[in-house]
C-alpha cells in the first residue's frame, strides 16, 4: 500500500492521526499509514548500520527495521531505562517501525486549524514535517513518513 501524502493545503475532509510523543514534541501520522502500534520489542542491533537504525525486530515472523525517531529528528537521546514504543508504518518495501517515547490517542482534527511548518524549527525537523495543526494548547506536528524513512546509508 502506498504511503499517502498529506496534501500541503490540508485536507478537505477531516483526517485521523495516530499521535505520539518524541521528547516533548507531539507528532501525528495519518492513521491510514499506520499498520499497528506495539509496546517495546527486543531488538537485535546491527553493527555498522546507520545511526538512526536502532535494530531489527521480529514482527510475527517478519523482520522489521526499527528507526529511532529521536535520532532521526536529531533530538537528545532517550534516558537510560526508558523503553521506546513501536509504531509500525507501511512503506513501499514493507513495514518499518518507528521508535517513539509515548503513544497517544488517535485524533480527528479540524482542517481549518492546519498550518504549514513554522520557520523556526531546526532544519532536520522541518524537512520531516509536513505541517501542523493547532490544537488546544499544543501543536500537533504531522510527520512526512516517506521522508522520515529516507535514511542515508553510509558509503561502505
Amino acid at each position, binding site marked *: 500500500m502506498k504511503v499517502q501524502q498529506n496534501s500541503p493545503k490540508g485536507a478537505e475532509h477531516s483526517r485521523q492521526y495516530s499521535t505520539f510523543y518524541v521528547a516533548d514534541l507531539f507528532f501525528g501520522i495519518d492513521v491510514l499509514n499506520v499498520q499497528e502500534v506495539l509496546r517495546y520489542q*527486543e*531488538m*537485535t*542491533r*546491527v*553493527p*555498522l*548500520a*546507520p545511526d538512526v*537504525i536502532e*535494530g*531489527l*525486530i*521480529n514482527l510475527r*515472523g*517478519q*523482520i*522489521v*527495521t526499527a528507526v529511532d525517531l529521536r535520532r532521526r529528528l536529531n533530538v537528545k537521546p532517550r534516558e537510560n531505562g526508558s523503553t521506546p514504543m513501536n509504531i509500525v508504518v507501511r512503506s513501499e*518495501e*514493507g513495514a*518499518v517501525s518507528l521508535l517513539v517515547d509515548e503513544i497517544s490517542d488517535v485524533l480527528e482534527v479540524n482542517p481549518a486549524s492546519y498550518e504549514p511548518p513554522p520557520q523556526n524549527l531546526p532544519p532536520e525537523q522541518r524537512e520531516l514535517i509536513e505541517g501542523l495543526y493547532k490544537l488546544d494548547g499544543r501543536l500537533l506536528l504531522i510527520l512526512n513518513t516517506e521522508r522520515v*524513512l529516507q*535514511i542515508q*546509508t*553510509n558509503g*561502505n
Partner: protein
Amino acid sequence: MEDFDTIREFLIESNENLGRLDQEIVELEKDPGNSELVASIFRTIHTIKGTCGFLGFDKLTGVTHSAENILSQVRDGKRKATNSLISIILESVDATKEILDVIEKTSEEGENAFEELKGRLHAFSEANEETEGNYVQAKAKVELPAAAESEANAATPTAENPSSEPVAEAPLTDDIDLETAILMKALLGEQGEGFTFVPQTLESKLVPEEPPATEKKAPETISPPAAQPEIQKPGKAESAAETNMSEQKPNPETNDNSAKAKEEPTPTAETAPPKPVQPIAPPAAAVEVAPGPPLRAAAAAAGAGADGGERTVGAKNNAVLDSTIRVDVGLLDKLMNLVGELVLARNQVLQFTARLEAGTFNATSQRLNLITSELQESVMKTRMQPIGIVWGKFPRVVRDLAAECGKYIHLNMDGAETELDRTIIEAIKDPLTHIVRNSCDHGIERPDERIKRGKTATGRLTLRAFHEGGHVNIEISDDGGGINPERIKAKAVQKGLLSVEQAQRLTEREAINLIFLPGFSTAEKVSNISGRGVGMDVVKTNIERIGGVVDLASTDGQGTTIKIKIPLTLAIIPGLVITGAGQRFVIPQVSLFELIRLEGENGMRQIERIHGTPVYRRRGKLLPLTFLNEILKVPGHAAVDDVVNIVVLQAEDSEFGLVVDGINDTQEIVVKPLGKRLKGLSMYSGATIMGDGKVALILDVLGIAQRSGVLRESREIRGANKENKQAQVGKDKQTMLLFSAGRFERLAVPLSLVARLEEIPVANVEHAAGRMVVQYRGQILPLVSLAGQLDPGADISLPKDQNVQVVVFNNGDRLIGLVVDRILDIVEEHVTVRKSSETFGLMGSAVVGQKVTDFVDLHEIIANSGEKWAAHKTLSGPATVMIVERSPFARAHLRSSLEMAGYRVVEAASSQEAVDKLSREKVRIVAASPEFSELAQHVKGNPKLAHIRLLGLLGEGSNPNRHADAGLFEEFQMKFDRKAMLSSLERLAEAVEHSEQELAGVSR
C-alpha cells in the same frame, strides 16, 4: 479483441513455440536433409499461424503464413534448406517475436506489418536456389530482446493482479510432476486455484494434424467470397471465425501473397485460390484452426490455465513430460514462503522440546520435524528447473554471432538437465549470455587465423553444468585465442587501475582476473555484441550477489575457461550460530571450512603477526585472521585469554580465520532479506529468526573478507609463505635438542653442535681438581652442570642412584659434557628468536615445538665453566672472521660455533654494516651468504681488503650459482654444517695468512 486471459494463453504458448523453433531451425541448418525436423518446424509455424488467425492478429498471420509457404516447399522437396532459407525463416521468426512483444504490451498488433519482409519472403518463395540469396537480409540484429524480454516479463507473476496492465506480464507457468501436483492440491484445498490438471488423453486430441477433411472443405470455401458463414462447420468456432472473416478483408497484400503461393498439397489450401477471392487464406486458416479452437475451448472449459498445445506439437517432448501440470509461479513462491515460515515455527517447537522433555510431545515434535523437512525438500524441488532452459537460447545466439563475425563455431552443451533453483536461473541468465557472447566475439578467432595457428577452422565452445557438493558448477570453455596476460596488464595500467609496479608483481592468473575490474574492456572497438566495458565486472557482481564465485583461466593462444560455482539453495540454509561482538550471528555452513579452538595460556600467544596481520600457523601454513569484534567495531570485547575460537572460512578460493567469542550449534535457518536501508552493508547477507524468536544477522563471508582486507593479505601471505619458505628453509629451519636443567624447563641447543647424548651412572662420576669428570671412551670428559651455570647457587648435586643425562659437545679433539636434567625432544622447524636474553648463559628465547624455549649460549657457559677449549692458534693470533648474516639467531649460532673453534668473531647484519666494520677491524675471513654481492664486490674491489677470503654460507636448498657474484667467493659451505665450515675456515685462514705475510713482505 479477445479477452485478456485468452491473449495471455496465446502469448505463453506462442513464446514457447518460438523458443523451440529457434532450436529446431538451428539444428536444421546443421542437418538440412532431416525431414522430420522440417515437418516439426512446419507444424510449429503452422500452429502459431492458426492461433493468430483465430485471435484476429492479421499481421502475425501474414508473416507466419509467408514463412510457412517457404517451409512447405522444403517439406515437399521442392526446395532445399539452404543457409539463405534458414536465414530468412529466422528473420520471420524474429518478426513474429517482435509482434508478439507489441501484443504483450498493448494487446494489439501495433503498426508494423512487416511488408518489406513479406515481400522478400514472397520473392524468395518464387526464386530458385541461385537467386534466393538476394532476398535474405544480412544479420543485423544480434540481441534477442524479444525473447529475453518476453521471458523476463513472463517470469513476473500476475495472478494476483489481473486488473493491472493488460498482458503487461504474462505469468510463466511451471511443469511439475504428478506427485508434487497432488501434494499441492491437497495442501491448497479443493479450489486449487491457479492450476488445472489436464489429463493426457485430452491433450492427444489437441494435435492439430493436417486434417484431410479440410482439404475437401477447401474447394468449398473458395467459390463465393461472401460465403463466409458456410465455412464455420465446427460449432463453437463460429462466432470467432466470423469475426475473423470480417477482419481479414482489408488485407489485399496478404491475400496477394497467399493467392500467388503455389503450394499444392498443403492442407492449408492456400494452394487453390485464384486472385480475386479475398480472404482465401484466412478462411482456410479459420477452417484450419477450427479443429483447434473448439478443442481449446473445450480445454478452457475444463478449467483455465491448462494448455495442451505445448505438449502436442513437440512430439518428441511427450515422452518426458508424461504427467505434468502448469502452475502459476506466484503460487509456488507463496508456497515457498509458507514452508519457510513452517521451518521457523518448527525450529521454535524443537527448542521447546529440548527444554521440556515431555515424553509423547517429543515424539510428536519429531514427526513434525520429519514432515517439515520432507515438505521443504519437495517444495524446493518444484522450484528447480533445468539449466537447459537458459541454454536453449544459445544455439541461436551462437549461430547468429558466428554468422555476423564470419566465424565457424560449434556449440557443445553438456549437463543441460542440471537443475537449479529458479531464482538462480534468473540471476545467471544474463551473465551466461554475456560470457557466451564474449567467447564468440573475442575468444574464437576467424577461420583463417585459426588455421594459421594450426587449429581447426571451426572453433569449439563448450558449456558444462554439474552438481558438486552443495554447489552447481557451470563451465564455459572455448578453444579460441585465450587471454594474453601482458595485454591485460598493459590495459589495466593504461586505464589507471593499477601501477606499473603492481602490475609487474602479479601472477599470470591474477593478471587474467584483472578483467573483472569495473570499467575494463580490451575490445578494440565496442561492438554491439560485447565490449561495452560493462561486461565482466557486472557478471562477477551478479554471480556474487547470489553467493557464487567466478573464476577465469586462460592460456594465451589456446583458449579460455570460465568457471562459475553457485550454492544450490538460497532460502533455507544450514548455518553455524556464533557469538561475537556481544550478540549472536549466523555463518552459512557452505562457507565454513573448519573450527579451531586454542586453549590454555598460549591461546592468544599462538597468534603471531606478520606484516602487522594476525596469523595462525595451521598445519605449517599461515592462516590470516580477522577479529569479528574489530570488523564490526564493537568495542570492549577482547577475547578472554583462555580460549580463542577461530572459524576458518573460505572466500574466493582462499581461506581465512574469523576470531569469534563463542561457537554455539548448527541450525537450519530461513534467510530473510534485510530492508533496503541495510542492504548496502556488505558484511551481512540477510537475517533470520532464531528458535527463541529473536532476530540474528547472517554474516556474508565474502563481505567480511573484503572488508577486513584479509583476502588481499591472504594473497600476500601466500606469496610471503612461498618466499619465506625458501628463505626460511635456508635460514632458520633447524634441528634442536630440547632439554631441561634446573629451573629452566625448556632449553634448546642446535643439534648440529651436539656430539652425543649419554646416560651415565652417577657412580661413574669422579671428581678431579675440583671438577666433575667421567671416564669416557678412553678420554677424560669434563662435566659441567648446566643448571649450576645458569643459576649460580642452585643445588647442583647429582641425583643418587640415577643416571646422569649428559649432552656431549665436541670441538675437534676436545670433548665437554653438559649435565642436564632431562632430555625432552628433538624437533626440526623454523625458528625465529623472539627475544634476546640478558640472562647469562642464554642467547634468547623462541617458540619451538609450539612452546616458548630458551636457547643456551654454549660458548658463554663453557667459557665460564673454566674449561678451556683449545684455541685455534695461528701465527698471528686468533683469526678474525666476520659473519654477515641477517638472522640474529643464525648469527649467534655461527658465532658460537666459530668462537668455540677459537676464532674471533665480528658480526654484521647487512652489507652496509659489514663494509662499515671492515674499515675498522682487521678481518681475515668474511663468511656471508652469496646474496651479499655488494659486499663481495666491495671486498674484492678494494686493494686493502682484497686479501680477505670470502666464504659463502648456504642455507638448505640454496644454489650458489643463482647469485651474480658467486665467483668472488672462494668456497661455499652449508652454514649449519659445522665441521665442513670449520675445515673451510681453516683452509681459508691459512691462505689469508700467506697473503698477509706476502703483503707484509715477510717471507716464510
